[in-house]
């Protein structure tokens, strides 16, 4: 079966005038399999939000999509549709209806003087003429899916709801037009751990029930272990690893993925093997030559400093590292970086 969306060589450039230029997304390729839950993981500034915004063609200025293809496979069609070739009006048609997104930090962006019901009605009407009653019925359905009581929530103003409830309202809103692809940008980051856990459960439920294709953006690898089927790891604007969740956690192939897992303290297990990744993420205006991770990588050598690795096939998964076979064989990175 064809994937729902194939992202190919996607590039997003920010033109910072006299401060130079940078590619926040730099040659990114991946597939979103139909009905699957995929996670895009990376640290702050790695380019997650920019990638997602590019998928719905809402990259903010001074950024613009400077290359690539977004191949959308309609069911039953033999040829994909390149979303980047659609006119703005055609693309607007597809937002919400085909691809919906819950934006990072959006729980604080609801209109404070409008009841939730009106906001939901407006969302639908701006895309599709539909009678109020019908919309409200659909809204109630969606709210129930995220375990909110419609009779109470529809009448409420945003400030009457907690952060976790507002986030669930947004998820419900994104479901109003029954999208095929739902993108969630850090949907639980600002929330309590308990609320987060329940929202993740809800998302998994919805995904399974509706057979939705979901893309979850997060900086927290632990969050994806339970929810995602497939994980994409992003570093400095590029995908460095792409693997099924189980395989990734059983044996990360990229030194960065490995470093992340080793750097994060946990509640169980041994802490003595924990160590930070040295250095910091690069300035994207002047990315390091060769492999972008080389200044922080314990395996780096001369080749890494000169030759940029490509995302190559590694048996049902992909990894961008010259020495992934060697990395895969070692259990933990033993030596701290010099």
């Amino acid at each position, binding site marked *: 079966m064809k994937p729902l969306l194939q992202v190919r060589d996607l590039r997003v450039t920010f033109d910072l005038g006299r401060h130079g230029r940078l590619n926040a997304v730099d040659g990114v390729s991946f597939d979103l399999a139909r009905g699957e839950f995929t996670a895009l993981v990376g*640290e*702050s500034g790695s380019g997650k939000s920019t990638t997602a915004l590019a998928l719905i063609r809402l990259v903010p200025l001074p950024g613009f999509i400077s290359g690539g293809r977004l191949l959308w496979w309609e069911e039953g069609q033999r040829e994909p549709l390149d979303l980047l070739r659609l006119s703005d009006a055609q693309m607007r048609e597809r937002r919400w209806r085909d691809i919906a997104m819950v934006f990072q930090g959006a729980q604080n962006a609801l209109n404070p003087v409008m009841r939730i019901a009106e906001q939901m009605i407006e969302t639908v009407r701006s895309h599709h003429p539909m009678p109020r009653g019908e919309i409200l019925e659909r809204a109630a359905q969606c709210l129930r899916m995220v*375990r909110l009581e419609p009779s109470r929530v529809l009448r409420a103003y945003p400030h009457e709801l*907690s*952060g*976790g*409830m507002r986030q669930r309202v947004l998820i419900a809103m994104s479901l109003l037009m029954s999208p095929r692809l739902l993108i969630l940008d850090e949907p639980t980051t600002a929330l*309590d*751990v*308990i*609320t*987060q*856990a*329940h929202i*993740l*459960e809800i998302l998994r439920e919805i995904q399974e029930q509706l057979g939705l294709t979901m893309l979850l953006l997060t*900086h*927290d*690898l*632990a*969050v994806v*272990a*339970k929810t995602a089927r497939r994980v994409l790891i992003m570093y400095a604007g590029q995908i460095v690893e792409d693997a099924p*969740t*189980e395989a990734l*956690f*059983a044996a990360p192939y990229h030194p960065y993925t490995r*470093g*992340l*897992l*080793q*750097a*994060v*303290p*946990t*509640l*169980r*297990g*041994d*802490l003595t*093997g*924990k*160590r*930070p*990744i040295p250095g*910091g*993420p690069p300035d994207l205006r002047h990315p390091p030559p060769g492999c972008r991770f080389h200044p922080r990588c314990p395996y780096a050598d001369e080749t890494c400093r000169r030759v940029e690795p490509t995302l190559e096939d590694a048996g049902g998964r992909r990894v961008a590292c010259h020495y992934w076979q060697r990395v895969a064989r070692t*259990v*933990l990175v033993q030596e701290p970086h010099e």
Partner: protein
Amino acid sequence: MQQTLIALEEVSLIFRRGWLSRERVEAVSRVSLTIPEGGILALVGETGSGKTTLGKLVAGLYRPTQGRVLFRGQNLWTMDRRSFLEYRRAVQLVHQDAFAALNPVRTIYQSLKAPLLRHRMVRNGREARERAAELLERVGLTPPELFLDKYPHQLSGGQRQRVLLARALTVQPRLIVADEPVSMIDVSLRLSILQLLRELNRRLGIAILYITHDLATARYLAEEGQLAVMYLGQIVEQGAFRKVLENPCHPYLQALLSAIPIPDPRVARAIRPMTLQEIDPPDPRRPPPGCRFHPRCPYAQRICREIPPALEGPADHQVACHFAREIPSWRLSSAVSPSPWA
């Protein structure tokens, strides 16, 4: 047993919105705790639970509405001025937002020089520069010459957090109150700041109050020390870190532990978050009567709605729940043995 450095006795703090407003927020409610010389206490709680407010009470920045804060046995708010100044030096607060905490038009050296001179830790500019360089080395900003004349915006988040720690060290404190020191830093760099705090504690014997919403980082720092868990302004469980985590008794702590994501799919999928009556926490401005957890607690009985439970038990493990002994125990360990990452 080490000597007690700081003790809070039944401390409460009530905020009022505006002068005449009747809206009151009891941000901290009857909290008692002690921090020993050279010890580490992790204060864990979710947003709005009152951690920062408690940290500021410990640092002497807020005066309690009720109760006493004792520094080496003396009441902070009745001691003479000299002792109070001594206290303000001995207890240093490190903010979560290092960028906001540093003056943007001052170089790192200027930021360090001011407290050094003010507290007469050095005699002149030359000594100040030497001492500042030493401090930067101490916090891992080496070689210091590279950093002394930089401005805050020229540093990364982790480096700025280190500068804040260096600034706290200028006055040779006995306690550092670190309020979410890593929450704004890249995931890959958090551990290095925690390691630095641990080193300051071990090498210099500086006590640490580590304030966080993240139990896992708390464990990294304070596993040998103490843990206090806050919920809506109150401490619901506290004691020796290991002991509390081995046998968490308060339903809130159990729910919290069951909800923390685990970076191992096999274990993560085997564990479900504990079912609560309500997913969302109540508005901290209107805490429920009786036990503040009762609207969400699966074990709540009538007494819970009426009478607030007291923190009870031996000093190394206390719980504030009417049914602490009756409710089923909950264990962190699960049937699946975790991978090296979990």
